[in-house]
């Protein structure tokens, strides 16, 4: 097992090199002069030349790539062209914001989705099954944008019980350690900040989690229906075990494998796709960061963010593969 993990971690190296080449090429794939596309039509030749010099665009590609890679390895992601801020520092704050939101949304989606799927399968054709699966069908096709706005209108404007934007109420004290606010507030024993951060997470988390929740619910249901027909479930019942035990242990552990695949995929998608949610709820994460960078042609920011997100994507895949082994001992790693 450990050997497998180490081998997989080594296999990450070529993948990441590939990703780095892709992100590096990004700047050169855009037709025309990169310096001009960054500075716009009105830039003077002198300005362009100084930017080229600054970014090293005059050097041969291979030298540029070497430098790019060397900097990354040292944790130096360069500066934003627009704001001149250090990108690594920015990401250190923005990445946890997005990851925290994504994990929160996924946990919400998994708990509700799996539970609904299991109950719908066990009570096939019941009113619960009908309602939850119609809801799931609806949930997959719901526009997040609309859902987000409706939630803000309902919970922030009408009932005024949830904050409409941001990660923390301004003025709320929180000592940050990891920049994951829930974690930090727990680590520092700051209960007020925890509640505040949690209430800020609820709406964007739900908005972001709706689609995966619906997909997970449907997947769990069909997988459970398949498993409940198996001989070993009949055996488990014949042993005189409690129904709940049979369903949640014997059946669910078998039914979970295809659900796990969906969860892994959705997690990656959410990380990349949080742009909309972050925009609606003014969430200071990388989604909005990269969105603004793309608009402003801030290539160093775009490159770095893509590289980081791709790395996380690959890591999530690795974790999913390792979890497979937990859920199905028949899977061989060698």
């Amino acid at each position, binding site marked *: 097992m450990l050997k497998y993990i180490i081998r997989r971690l080594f296999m990450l190296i070529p993948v990441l090199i590939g990703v780095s080449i892709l992100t590096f090429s990004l700047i050169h794939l855009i037709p025309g002069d990169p310096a001009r596309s960054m500075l716009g039509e009105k830039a003077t030749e002198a300005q362009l030349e100084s930017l080229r010099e600054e970014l090293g665009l005059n050097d041969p590609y291979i030298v540029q790539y070497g430098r790019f890679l060397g900097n990354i390895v040292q944790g130096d992601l360069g500066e934003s062209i627009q704001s001149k801020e250090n990108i690594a520092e920015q990401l250190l704050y923005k990445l946890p914001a997005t990851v925290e939101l994504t994990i929160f949304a996924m946990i919400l989606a998994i708990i509700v989705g799996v539970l609904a799927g299991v109950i719908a399968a066990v009570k096939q054709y019941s009113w619960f099954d009908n309602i939850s699966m119609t809801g799931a069908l609806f949930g997959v096709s719901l526009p997040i944008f609309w859902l987000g706005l409706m939630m803000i209108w309902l919970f922030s404007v009408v009932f005024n019980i949830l904050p409409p934007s941001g990660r923390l109420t301004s003025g709320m004290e929180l000592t940050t350690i990891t920049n994951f606010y829930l974690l930090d507030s727990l680590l520092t024993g700051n209960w007020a900040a925890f509640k505040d951060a949690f209430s800020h997470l609820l709406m964007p988390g739900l908005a972001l989690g709706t689609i995966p929740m619906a997909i997970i619910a449907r997947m769990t249901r069909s997988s459970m229906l398949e498993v409940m027909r198996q*001989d*070993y479930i009949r*055996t488990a019942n014949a*042993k*005189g*075990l409690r129904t709940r*035990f049979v369903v949640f242990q014997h059946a669910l*552990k*078998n039914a979970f494998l295809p659900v796990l695949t969906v969860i892994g995929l959705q997690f990656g998608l959410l990380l990349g796709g949080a742009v909309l949610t972050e925009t609606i709820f003014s969430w200071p994460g990388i989604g909005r960061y990269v969105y603004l960078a793309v608009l402003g042609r801030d290539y160093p920011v775009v490159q770095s963010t893509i590289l980081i997100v791709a790395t996380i994507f690959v890591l999530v895949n690795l974790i999913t593969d390792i979890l497979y082994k937990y859920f199905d001992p028949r899977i061989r790693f060698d």
Partner: protein
Amino acid sequence: MHTESPILQVENLHTHFITKAGIVKAVDGVDFDIKPGETLGIVGESGSGKSMTAMSIMGLIPSPPGKIVEGEIRFKGENLLTKTKKQMRNIRGKEISMVFQDPMTSLNPVFTIEKQLIETILAHESFSKNQARSRALELLHLVGIPDPKKRLKNYPHEFSGGMRQRVMIAIALACNPSVLIADEPTTALDVTIQAQILELFKKMQNELNMAIIMITHDLGVVAEVCDRVMVMYAGKPVEYTETNHLFDQGKHPYTLGLMNSIPTINKQKKKLEAIDGVPPDLRSLPKGCSFAPRCKHVMEACLHIDPTLTEVNDHHFVRCLLYEETNSEKVVSP
């Protein structure tokens, strides 16, 4: 030999499945009893209701669509059909346990053998986990699995078919049941392994004085292990007697057909499909004798009158108009 009173009595059992296409009378008036230490065989073609008889006893008829509509199942004198769900759960796997046909699919692939043994023990006995563990070890030893200590930690896919069936038997024996139902326990195994498993059943029966209901396609198995035998056709018992009687003086045309379909020269086994014609559609049984469309001795009366199970000799019952004494008088009524 078996002078004690019966441990299990099934009386006039009717189990029906209510489907869109009509009512399937899977079990349609089954009567039998069995004493401690005795082995009763149930034979019949595919679909004759053998498994559903067993599942009715276990209280595991899937409902809907299945329902026990009539009859009594008395275990130690008490009617199981009036028991609550919880009471039945306490009987299943403890007092009455079951071994299924396909050992490849009847064990849960994602749990170790140890877990699957222990959960049964813990469900019924007030054992500590450690006590259950040593009981599990003892059971594997009992059913003849080599190196049991190491094998406990293995998953089902790490066992051969014969070894898995031994594990299934170990699970069934975990709480020293008084009745063991074996539903075609050797059908999926190759011939030499079959003999070993049958041997194991006999040995366990001698040690524990269990009553065994042996469901099988195979008259060879009946000859090998059964004291008495019930032949089923279309949900009804058609012949019910001691094993020797069946082979010496079997009477029902269906039974005789079954016996002719066993090859006698070599001991090769053969399924019982060799009788001409197909089993009837249980949703719309013919008026009169269900076997009439396939019977060599069919008479005019057989098309109108459904024969009743009649004692033709001491403890030898046959359901056939050829052996009903009152036959001639009944023919008058249409």
